[in-house]
């Protein structure tokens, strides 16, 4: 079975998931506690950033593997290609958010508030980089390049599967494109994450943030790959994908969970030790007002996968690795929740508290305000879970749709034999 056919029941399930997500998204417009509809906009931004990032990292990792002459992943490389093609839908939503930001329809970003640019020294100082023009048009440029590469590598892969020959000309071309993408992706992903997420806490910055959030995307991408592969295998596809491939993916999940923790801790400890006000504000706010999210983040994304995946056999068994992948995928969604929600809520309170704009000195009132439980911010509510399910369904629908549009295994890939005989 080299051709995936999407069953009707799956289509129905995923469309119901999407409908649920849409319903919850609309609900979050109305049940939000503030006049800016921050709950709606943060839900939209949070899930879009999370799933677009997974899509981007899939493309990035295909390029890494091609450049590194890796062969183990070749059997299921179409799964990652399908992941990378979700990108365009994420970009459409990001462009909507960008236009909303440009026209002032929402108040996600403190740096976009005209009064704050006037009176707030730090925001004023950063306004050369953090402004609505760079956000929209810079983002548009990066997204266009990413999508160009995603399309190009996909079309090369398809062409190779169709009429590749012993000269491996398609693979050679793909190597050039992959190598060209890596440096661009490295710098542009930092630009994107600073603009989209880090600038939500406009006064704060961290030079480790791009790595930290990128590691989070990577772990999520591996989790989704495992879950999709286990699902497809349970339906009888991908007979040649064995415990050996799952083992390698499990090792990536294990190793990058630790890598994520390493970055999280490095970022935290340096800021904690230096104790500089403009840096500690990020963690102080989260530790005091979001303790469940803050400490739960470490438990779910480090302690749990570390101890469960430490053994050899738990990385190989579909059951154990599947359970870990499910929980850690949710864990990194939770991680992005913690990156995005507190900053946006703080901005909303600050802007509302002083009738659209005042200096940074008055921020104390806003911090105290945030100490109260705010549904959909302090903890993910049912609406947030619903939106997550909606986005996950949309992501999986695009993935299965793209998988169905091409053979599951690229028969003429030069590394196919290596992948089939992969043994760890």
């Amino acid at each position, binding site marked *: 079975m080299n051709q995936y056919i999407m069953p009707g029941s799956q289509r129905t399930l995923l469309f119901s998931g999407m409908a649920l997500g849409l319903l919850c998204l609309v609900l979050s417009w109305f049940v939000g506690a503030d006049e800016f509809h921050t709950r709606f906009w943060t839900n939209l931004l949070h899930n879009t950033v999370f799933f677009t990032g997974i899509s981007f990292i899939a493309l990035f990792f295909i390029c890494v593997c091609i450049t590194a002459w890796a062969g183990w992943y070749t059997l299921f490389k179409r799964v990652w290609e399908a992941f990378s093609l979700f990108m365009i839908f994420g970009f459409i939503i990001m462009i909507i958010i960008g236009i909303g930001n440009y026209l002032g329809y929402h108040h996600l970003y403190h740096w976009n508030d005209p009064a704050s640019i006037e009176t707030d020294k730090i925001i004023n100082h950063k306004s050369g980089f953090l402004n609505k023009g760079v956000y929209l048009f810079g983002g548009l440029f990066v997204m266009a390049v990413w999508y160009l590469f995603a399309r190009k590598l996909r079309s090369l892969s398809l062409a190779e599967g169709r009429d590749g020959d012993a000269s491996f000309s398609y693979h050679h071309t793909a190597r050039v494109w992959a190598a060209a993408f890596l440096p661009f992706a490295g710098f542009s992903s930092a630009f994107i994450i600073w603009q989209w997420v880090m600038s939500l806490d406009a006064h704060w910055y961290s030079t480790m943030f791009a790595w930290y959030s990128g590691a989070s995307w990577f772990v999520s991408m591996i989790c989704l790959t495992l879950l999709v592969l286990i699902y497809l295998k349970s339906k009888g596809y991908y007979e040649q994908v064995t415990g050996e491939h799952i083992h390698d993916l499990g090792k990536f999940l294990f190793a990058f969970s630790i890598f994520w923790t390493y970055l999280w*801790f490095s970022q935290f400890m340096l800021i904690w030790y230096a104790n500089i006000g403009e840096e500690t504000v990020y963690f102080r706010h989260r530790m005091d007002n979001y303790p469940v999210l803050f400490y739960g983040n470490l438990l779910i994304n480090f302690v749990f996968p570390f101890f469960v995946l430490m053994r*050899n056999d738990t990385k190989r068994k579909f059951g154990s690795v599947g359970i870990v992948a499910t929980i850690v995928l949710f864990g990194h969604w939770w991680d992005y929740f913690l990156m995005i929600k507190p900053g946006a809520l703080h901005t909303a309170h600050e802007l509302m508290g002083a009738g659209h704009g005042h200096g940074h000195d008055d921020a104390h009132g806003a911090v105290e305000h945030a100490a109260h439980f705010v549904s959909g911010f302090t903890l993910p509510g049912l609406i947030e879970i619903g939106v997550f399910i909606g986005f996950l369904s949309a992501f999986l629908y695009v993935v299965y749709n793209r998988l169905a549009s091409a053979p599951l295994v690229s028969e003429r890939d030069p590394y196919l034999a290596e992948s089939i005989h992969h*043994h760890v």
Partner: protein
Amino acid sequence: MTIRDKKVIYGLYNDEQDLLKAVKVAKGAHMDILDVFSPFPVHGLDPLLELEESRLHIAGFIYGMIGALTAFLGMTWIFTKDWPIIFGGKPYWSVPAFIPITFETMVLFASIGMVVTFYTVCGLGPGVTNPTLDDRLTDDKFAIAFDASHVDAGDVESFFAKTGAAEVNTKIL
């Protein structure tokens, strides 16, 4: 594994695939293989020989835990009871500052503990000379060895001839 005063009959193979096939044949004929030697780990050899999974990593986990606890509890005792010092206005019991040292000590204990355990189990150590079967086994040859007192010499010779051994030797270790 230590072998002492044993007459060993062994065949040398030029290729790992020949070796794997020969081991399969020997298993099929219920021949009692003493050991198999190769210059590098051969994929698929362990399950063929029905070797048990090494327990070295369990020992490593325990050493690591001991190391982590030693460092963490040690620093806790030093900085809260024995000699409290304020660093940069931080509390005495500053957990984030302990993490890097705890991690390093865990790695140190686990690595040294595993090396010592491995050497002890294998009978290795300074001043120990272990007899070698054939010097070329560290270079490009593969060997299947039989204990000459457990097998019939004729059977073994015909087995080696059949499975394409390049050379058959006997040695007393």
